[in-house]
């Protein structure tokens, strides 16, 4: 692997390996066993993934990684979705590690990121406000100036992925002068983690409360000048990760549904021979093939564009993929449930695991309606400043 990233053959091999490893070590039985597990993931599996190098694919070699592109690790994220794997890999080694690598303060990247890569430490990003929405306008935690150039953080971040498993939190906080980012230890005084029970039990979000948490200046990742750009880059990475996860779900659910409707017989014929079923699956194939190019395009945009601030092209590529692919996955899972009939409505059947994860992916890192409005803003300019002249 080089700074130019992997070849398409290397990427395909990585995906094949990922699929094999996850089928072998994280099969559906393991996924189900972890649904009610307090930790919510399998540390033995995580150690395996670290050994395979997946925690460092998209991390610069200076921080102990393999210096690959985001597009290189994208296939792994798709495989994790396909296998509905419960793992903090995405929250730690993708989303948090990226924020740390991109931060203007390079000290944290040098000290924390190598430990994320070697698996001795996990990190996650905390910033969503009430309702779990995440954008620069809805940052939950608040900051005020502290002693010696440091800050004091108060308030609450919601839907913090894998917070209970994390050793380190990358927290974004809003203040009068703008948004800052800081790195804190999860066990620091004043920090409380309260697990959030979601319909999707393959993920472990939590609410993190900050009560006068003092951060020294060394812990500041980005000040008010750079904080918003870092937040937007983080949301874009998170949104793309959700889209990739949903793409994996969409792909496998179409395969499983096709298998089912071939072997389910009613009225003396396989139900897949009925056009009502066949055409719905054809639509699903169309959604999968269009989603495939949409996620590839978003991953390429993450790599091509200077990470901060958000460029027009990156916004369009990422927002389109997030809205289109996450919606497609929910549609495909819902249609799959319908095609399976009564059996799909049971706890025993896996359909609900895919559907619930696809729904959480759709909800996090910017809902579809908002993503489509972001595209419109990028194309048309902000509301109130377009069309007025000629319409006047």
């Amino acid at each position, binding site marked *: 692997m080089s700074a130019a990233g992997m070849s398409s053959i290397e990427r395909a091999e990585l995906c094949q390996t990922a699929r094999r490893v996850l089928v072998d070590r994280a099969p559906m039985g393991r996924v189900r066993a972890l649904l009610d597990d307090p930790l919510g993931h399998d540390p033995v599996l995580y150690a395996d993934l670290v050994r395979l190098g997946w925690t460092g694919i998209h991390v610069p070699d200076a921080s102990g990684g393999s210096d690959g592109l985001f597009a290189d690790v994208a296939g792994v994220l798709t495989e994790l979705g396909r296998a509905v794997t419960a793992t903090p890999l995405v929250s730690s080694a993708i989303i948090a590690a990226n924020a740390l690598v991109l931060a203007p303060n390079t000290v944290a990247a040098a000290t924390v990121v190598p430990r994320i890569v070697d698996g001795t430490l996990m990190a996650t990003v905390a910033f969503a406000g009430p309702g779990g929405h995440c954008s620069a306008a809805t940052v939950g935690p608040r900051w005020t100036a502290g002693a010696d150039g440091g800050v004091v953080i108060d308030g609450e971040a919601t839907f913090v992925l894998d917070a209970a498993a994390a050793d380190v939190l990358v927290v974004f906080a809003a203040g009068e002068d703008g948004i800052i980012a800081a790195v804190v230890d999860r066990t620091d005084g004043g920090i409380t983690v309260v697990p959030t029970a979601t319909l999707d039990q393959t993920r472990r979000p939590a609410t993190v409360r900050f009560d006068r948490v003092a951060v020294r200046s060394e812990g500041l990742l980005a000040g008010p000048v750079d904080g918003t750009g870092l937040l937007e880059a983080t949301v874009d990475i998170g949104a793309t990760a959700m889209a990739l996860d949903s793409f994996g779900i969409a792909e496998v659910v179409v395969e499983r549904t096709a298998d089912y409707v071939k072997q389910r017989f009613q009225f003396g014929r396989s139900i897949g021979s009925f*056009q009502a079923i066949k055409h719905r699956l*054809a639509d699903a194939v169309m959604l999968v093939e269009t989603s495939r190019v949409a996620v590839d395009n978003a991953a390429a945009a993450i790599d*091509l564009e200077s990470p901060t601030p958000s460029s027009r092209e990156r916004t369009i590529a990422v927002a389109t993929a997030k809205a289109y692919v996450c919606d497609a996955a929910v549609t495909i899972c819902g249609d799959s449930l319908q095609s399976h009939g009564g059996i799909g409505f049971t706890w025993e059947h896996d359909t609900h695991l895919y559907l619930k994860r696809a729904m959480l992916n759709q909800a996090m890192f910017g809902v579809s309606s908002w993503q489509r409005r972001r595209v*419109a803003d990028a194309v048309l300019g902000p509301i109130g400043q377009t069309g007025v002249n000629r319409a006047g």
Partner: protein
Amino acid sequence: MDATIAAIGPDGGEFDELRNSVRRWCAATIPPDWREQQRGADHHGYIEFQRWWRDRLAEAGYFIPHWPREWGGVEMSLPEQVVLYEELSRGDAPRLGITQVSVFNAAPAIIHAGSPAQKQRYLPAIASGEIWCQGFSEPNAGSDLAGLQTRAVRDGDHYVVNGQKIWTSMAREAEQCILLARTDLDAPKNKGISFFVMDMRSPGVEVRPIKNLVGDSEFCETFMTDVVIPAENLIGPEHGGWAVSQATLGSERAVALIGLAELLRRNGRDFLLTAAAAWTMPDGSPVLDDSAVREAIGGLYGEVEILRLVLTRMVTNLLHHGGAGPEASVVKIYYSELLQRLMRFASELHGPAGQLLRPGVSSSGWETHDFARDFIHSYSWTIGGGTNEIMRNIVGEQVLGLAREPRPEGARR
């Protein structure tokens, strides 16, 4: 964005040169006012303009760019064709309709299944701009094309043909017709069909134009009464015509779709955004300030980008694995339904002013810039070239391997 082309071809710089030269050619050749000239043009004016445009393309080597040099082409590679069709669309080039069948349907069949003598006889004529039509569909054989009833009976060194064809575009001008006719009544229905070249000037051929729903006569009915076709005009084996007709879905047509994607971006989406800047809601507020409208635009904008990406992927696959395969059906469904949604949205948004009756623009497909008319015309894409329902059957059966619908008892297979 040239990045996608670089992703297809081995060397982006090489294509930049072609791109620039096509761009310069477009600027120098395409009359900027051709749309105004062609608005309301009668059939004669349309044909005349089409012949003029074909000659310009031919001079530049853009008429049959993918053909071998020995037959008059310039042997453009797939990525080069992508660049060509993209730039023609970008330059708002007129569509070349009159030679659609000769170049994209007849020639591939003849190249695939014709004898050396047949190639020698037909390909130079096609290369010089001869107009052909396609006699496949019949009043009772549309989606179920293999159920066609036109008969060809062998009589010594010729066949005698009786029957009726429909949707034969350009039948009035065509000199030749690629014709599917039944030669074996007893065989399963797609095993008894033969593929012919029929001279449209033969005695017994009668053509009647059909006025379509926007008032144009773009296609015809063709009646054949005791038409004599020489046996040497049979393409491929007798009774083997079905396979010949299926082989004409060539990669060149898939590549030409790239031009349509570009057209949908420029003439569809981007033109809409420019036009809609002047449109208002009933309360007088700009439509582009309405958040529901903006959300719809944001979604459609991205979906048009996805169309281009998915076509590029298809061409890349063609390049590496050959054959567009059933995936082409996926793209056809996606393109036609996205086009239709975009036009319906634009038509609705435009309000009463969009409902005005204006003469159509000849040499233009759905992209006349009258969105209501273009919405209506878009159904030619969800019906033509295999209805989207048939396309969904193909995707279900050939991509996913689902069972075919059982045939009713007594129906011919």
